[in-house]
């Protein structure tokens, strides 16, 4: 028998609407309400300025290790903007912009970055999972959440975030496969920021795109310019709509770039060139979006400065507020809480023993 070709009819699309110079493809321009556009801009600017402030705090020794988001704001905001509060957000650990959009307080981020579990508490009105550090392992939880919503005949969806490195993990492949098999309402958002700490995308995969991996699992995959918030927004709107109406999962690859270090414990100069970072700085999502809003007449230079000064005050208030809140934290016995619904006897004993030791030695909790 001769070899035959099996035709795979699906294609991977690439979507870009607002190029790096801020030029718009009018035909593809998504219809987004003015209030949403302005909220996206404000959140993007806030996330950017807050990220810079967090880095300063860390360098001053006023905060612990964290993962900066600079450069990835559009990928996060263009996707998260489509979720309702009852939808599920399943983050990795570099999604501060999406977190802020969902209503997470700046204070809570500072508190978490200072090593207090209190900072990652999720309020009852948001269906957001807490930060997940082991790369890719959270992806499957989104499948379970989406499946459960479907089981309960709710049209809620689950959106999960991960990076290019996570696409090498088994959990990424298992997650996509399960989601497709069960047609779970899940949006897989890959922030392809080109670097998994020191390992470049070229060493992570031989695939031309990450989006194409979706095809192997029988779901749509799309690659978008992840620094173009309009493209991200348009692609995510389609994916969320499909998931909500029973059309199953989608993989969105947002091509973006991590302009800063992996975490503050890392020195990217060891593995990548300044020229590369310089090149990507030109594709920064923020000025491009601002140019679009200016061209559209939704923003003015004055208004932008006004928003920025508002934001700087908000950030300062959050830093002050968080530092004040943290003075009241630090009771070491807190670490025993939330182990189980009901504390087993031996844990009660361990907690009581520690309490006694602490009071005998006259030491109080370290306030970090």
């Amino acid at each position, binding site marked *: 028998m001769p070899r035959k070709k099996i035709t795979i009819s699906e294609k991977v699309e690439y979507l870009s609407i607002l190029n790096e110079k801020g030029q718009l493809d009018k035909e593809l321009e998504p219809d987004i309400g003015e209030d949403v556009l302005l909220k996206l801009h404000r959140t993007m600017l806030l996330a950017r300025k807050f990220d810079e402030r967090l880095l300063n705090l860390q360098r001053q020794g006023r905060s612990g290790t964290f993962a900066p988001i600079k450069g990835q704001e559009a990928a996060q905001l263009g996707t998260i903007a489509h979720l309702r509060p009852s939808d599920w957000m399943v983050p990795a650990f570099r999604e501060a912009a999406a977190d802020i959009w969902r209503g997470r307080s700046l204070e809570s981020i500072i508190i978490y970055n200072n090593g207090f579990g209190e900072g990652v508490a999720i309020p009852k009105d948001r269906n957001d999972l807490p930060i997940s550090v082991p790369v890719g392992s959270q992806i499957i939880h989104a499948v379970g959440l989406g499946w459960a919503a479907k089981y309960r005949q709710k049209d809620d969806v689950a959106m999960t975030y991960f990076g290019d490195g996570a696409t090498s993990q088994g959990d990424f492949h298992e*997650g996509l496969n399960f989601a497709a098999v069960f047609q779970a309402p899940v949006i897989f958002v890959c922030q392809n920021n080109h670097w998994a700490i020191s390992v470049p995308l070229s060493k992570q995969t031989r695939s031309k795109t990450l989006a194409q991996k979706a095809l192997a699992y029988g779901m749509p995959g799309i690659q978008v310019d992840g620094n173009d918030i309009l493209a991200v927004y348009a692609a995510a709107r389609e994916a969320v709509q499909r998931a909500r109406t029973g059309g199953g999962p989608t993989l969105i690859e947002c091509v973006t770039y991590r302009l800063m270090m992996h975490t503050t414990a890392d020195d990217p100069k060891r593995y990548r060139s300044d020229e590369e970072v310089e090149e990507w700085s030109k594709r920064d999502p923020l000025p491009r979006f601002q140019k679009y809003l200016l061209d559209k007449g939704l923003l003015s230079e004055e208004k932008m400065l006004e928003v920025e000064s508002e934001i700087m005050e908000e950030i300062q208030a959050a830093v002050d507020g968080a530092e004040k809140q943290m003075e009241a934290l630090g009771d070491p016995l807190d670490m025993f809480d939330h182990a189980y619904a009901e504390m087993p006897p031996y844990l009660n004993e361990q907690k009581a023993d520690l309490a006694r030791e602490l009071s005998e030695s006259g030491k109080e909790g370290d306030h970090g």
Partner: protein
Amino acid sequence: MAKMTMVQALNLALQQEMKKDDSVVVLGEDVGVDGGVFRVTDGLINQFGDQRVLDTPLAESAIVGMSIGIAVYGLKPVCEIQFSGFSYQNFHQLENHAARLRWRSRGRFHVPMVLRTPYGGGVRALEHHSESREAYWAHTPGLKMVIPSGPRNARALLISAIRDPDPVIFYESKAVYRAFREEVPEAEEILPIGKPQLIQEGSDVTMISYGAMMRPTMEAAAELKNKDGIEAEVIDLLTISPLDEEILVQSVKKTGRVVVIHEAPRSFGPGAEIVARLMEKAFYHLEAPIERVAGFDIIMPLFNREKVYLPSTERILRATRKVLAAK
């Protein structure tokens, strides 16, 4: 009351709990149409449909990860890992997430899932099908580790596990699955998780075991009574973690002599923790060094040698007589 094997009793528990509560869903490899390779989920798909009994693709990490998501949503997934020897591919989902989401979210979310999986030797199976690695899960704060020893307590504990608000690893002994029948009442019966059971009262020596090892332990206790005139007190742990030592301590205060029996490897096994707690809480009541009868610290041999590997009635007797002889 009907006489049932452990397989049938577990099936009854699942059926009754699914009938009672539509948040209970079952997922795993071959659990639907095939009814599970040991038939524990037999018939559930017919009774409850393929939207509640999911034949999943073959991927342990995703079975557990998906269960975590389902549980966080507020349902009660009961997933099956076909053999506990394959549960290392989902180890990180249990250690990194199932055990921690309550803590990480500061109580906003919890993971009321059950992971059922067959464990242990004695059925002449292939490599990876006979280990007893409960210590892994018992060592992870946030998980519960339950091992029934017979049909009746298996049924009662599985219902408790499903209703438990925290993740429960539920080990089912393959050697016990069809080994014997017990009366299992049709009416609901539950046993608390975290409470060992006093199976037989006695004043000469305390024998502590669980799971498949309860049978050789009971045989040894009977022989001690018949041949040596020894009254052994026998305790079935049922829950490995959270371990409640109270009943063990009370027993040791009475007998002063202890043997701990499990098929898990000896070093760092559950026996080590039990012995340590007894040293802490009942040292001055001990009249002899505590003996452990356990699997050896080697890879579980293939089935031709498994009988020698597994604690036998003879080994248990030898150890218990040694403890009894100590002055």
